[in-house]
């Protein structure tokens, strides 16, 4: 490993302190020898020879004394050079340059020049692959899906590094697992799990937690021996510059991230946001859609009429006493009637859905069904969302301020329903 440290010596408290730290911490990582020199090739040669300090004497003298094997470029011609009588790098260097370039490779001279600092060092840029796919063989067979996370985390770490280097984030990634060879016949080769994120991210912790939520639902058919992770959708991500001060907002998760995690466990159809619709019937005044879906740009003009703050999923038919509705005692009708009528054009299909249930939310379906039960125009088989109601504000001493309505039934009968609460 080659480290260029000249620019960072002050940061680490001087060359001596930096050297001590590298030697000490490098030993833990399995580093056997460390050497310093003015360029990388020379340092490599010195390290091979076991000389640490390349600044003790002029570099020429140090390198001249090294055996030829210290420089990789010399290695292919070592036999020939030995027969010429060369023992050290100095011997090679003192050979006539014209002869060397004719008899040996051009690379040999170039390597010598670079090691001695005659020519500048040129490094190749590391180019990352265009796509990310990494595999990991697990240390032991894993039988429970959540335990895959330990292995997957290492892969995710690699992926996040790759994403950071490419200045991008992932919007979807796939974790594949291969079953062990000792498996039941019906278990198959393995499985895969694709995870989509609401917004592109390369935040390791977030991706890990998201993966953990999804893995908790996976049941493995056989023990798993190998994992493979691929970034399937990569989009470039503009990075926010970090702040020098500890900013509270940056240490916290955004609401979108935490809702996404909750949706991963509970299911996306249970983390909802309301959308107002242009309708005056209570059931269809609003619909609920999963949070990540974009909201319509055109807002509905706010209605200034009083509206309850809670609604019942199905209107509750109330008992009556002397033509007055009862709900936890007698109700006192305060203001009304507020007539809501219409919706004969709104056909509900057999599943109880309507045009409003395009989002596939069961809540809307249930309410649609509930409304059609109470719809009076449902004589034929085709049910509609037709309503004909007189809404009243009712007051109960126990249940608070209620939104009840009276509906005409067949043969001039009426019925009272509780539909909402002004809480």
């Amino acid at each position: 490993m080659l480290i260029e440290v000249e620019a960072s010596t002050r940061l680490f408290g001087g060359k001596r302190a930096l050297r001590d730290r590298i030697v000490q911490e490098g030993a833990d990582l399995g580093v056997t020898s460390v050497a310093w020199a003015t360029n990388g090739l020379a340092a490599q040669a010195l390290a091979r020879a076991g000389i640490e300090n390349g600044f003790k004497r002029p570099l020429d003298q140090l390198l001249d004394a090294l055996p030829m094997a210290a420089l990789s470029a010399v290695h292919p011609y070592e036999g020939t050079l030995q027969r010429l009588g060369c023992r050290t790098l100095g011997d090679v260097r003192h050979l006539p340059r014209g002869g060397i370039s004719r008899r040996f490779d051009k690379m040999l001279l170039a390597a010598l020049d670079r090691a001695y600092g005659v020519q500048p060092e040129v490094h190749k840029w590391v180019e990352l692959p265009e796509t990310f796919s990494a595999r990991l063989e697990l240390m032991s067979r894993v039988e429970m899906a959540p335990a895959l996370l330990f292995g997957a985390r290492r892969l995710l770490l690699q992926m996040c590094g790759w994403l950071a280097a490419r200045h991008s984030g992932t919007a979807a990634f796939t974790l594949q697992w291969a079953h062990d060879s000792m498996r039941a016949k019906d278990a198959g080769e393995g499985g895969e799990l694709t995870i989509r994120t609401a917004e592109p991210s390369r935040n390791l912790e977030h991706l890990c937690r998201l993966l953990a939520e999804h893995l908790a639902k996976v049941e493995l058919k056989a023990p798993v021996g190998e994992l493979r992770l691929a970034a399937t959708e990569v989009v470039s991500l503009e990075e926010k510059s970090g702040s020098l001060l500890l900013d509270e907002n940056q240490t916290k998760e955004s609401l979108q991230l935490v809702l996404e995690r909750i949706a991963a466990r509970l299911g996306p159809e249970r983390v909802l946001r309301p959308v107002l619709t242009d309708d005056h019937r209570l059931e269809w005044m609003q619909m609920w859609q999963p949070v990540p879906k974009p909201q319509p740009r055109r807002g509905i003009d706010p209605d200034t009429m009083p509206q309850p703050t809670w609604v019942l999923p199905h209107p509750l038919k109330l008992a009556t006493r002397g033509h007055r509705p009862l709900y936890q005692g007698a109700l006192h009708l305060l203001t009304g009637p507020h007539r809501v009528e219409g919706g004969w054009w709104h056909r509900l299909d057999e599943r109880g859905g309507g045009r409003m249930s395009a989002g596939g939310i069961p809540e809307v379906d249930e309410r649609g069904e509930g409304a059609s039960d109470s719809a009076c125009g449902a004589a034929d088989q085709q049910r509609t969302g037709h309503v004909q109601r007189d809404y009243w504000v009712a007051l109960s001493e126990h249940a608070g301020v209620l939104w009840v309505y009276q509906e005409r039934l067949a043969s001039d009968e009426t019925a009272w329903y509780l539909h909402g609460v002004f809480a």
Partner: protein
Amino acid sequence: MSAVPAWAGDEDGLPAQSFAHPSKSRARRSLPGELPPEVEQAVWRGCDLGHQTSAVISSGFAGLDAELPGRGWPTQAISELLSPQPSVLEWRLIGPALRGIVSGGGAVVVVGPPKTPHLPGLRHTGIDEKHLVWVQVDSPAERLWTVEQLVKSGACGALVAWLPQARPEQIRRLQVCAHACTGPVFLFRPAATQHESSAAPLRVMATFSVDWELQVHVLKRRGPMHDGVVRLESVPGGLGSVLTPRLQRPSLIIASRHPGRDAARQRFTDVGTVKGGPVHALGSTASTDYAGRLGRHAPVR
């Protein structure tokens, strides 16, 4: 040595040396039983309302703010709101506070409400569709997990959750997590839990009366016990625009329809005074007067 203080009974007078100059200290010394003013300011008495170290969100009711430490709903802590019945007065109680949060860009996250929230009605409390999220939860475990995730993230403008079955240790856990939460956390719980211990620093019991009033009693707060109830005027869901003067006092209408129940109604509306605690109407002068009286009388109790 004529200036040796009378209370320095011992001969050497060393204790007096450690204070300021004796003659000066005598000049400034207050009467026995009273503290010097600078000490007085630094001492927190049990009869005063506690200081709120974190920011507070005004409840929107001047009468209620006067009874809450720091004059508002606390942030970085959970507030338990108890009521005898769910889905009767929730938005009336916290709606004015939510209006300020939503106008500041915070989102209101509703976890496990007893009924479906109705946005057209909630618009009257200032909540719009961009700032409302409804998380449907079924089991108590899901409820707790969701609330804990939201509290930990601290990303909600306000968290409104219904936890009817949470145990005291679970509330304690939430309270510890809430230290990172910048918005208020409202937990709605049944009135029966008022006898359980709770780690929430603020517990409020709320009921309503038919005369467009909320009756709030603070069960637990940082400060002295709260006697009686605070009556808060609250007309829900934009009904204020359709109320006729006659409908301002529905209790009179009910009484006229049921003359036999007049006595019962009288008891119902006078519940605060019957209990012996001072009841004050909505209004700032009345509430400060009440706080002052409470402060003088509390040490005796």
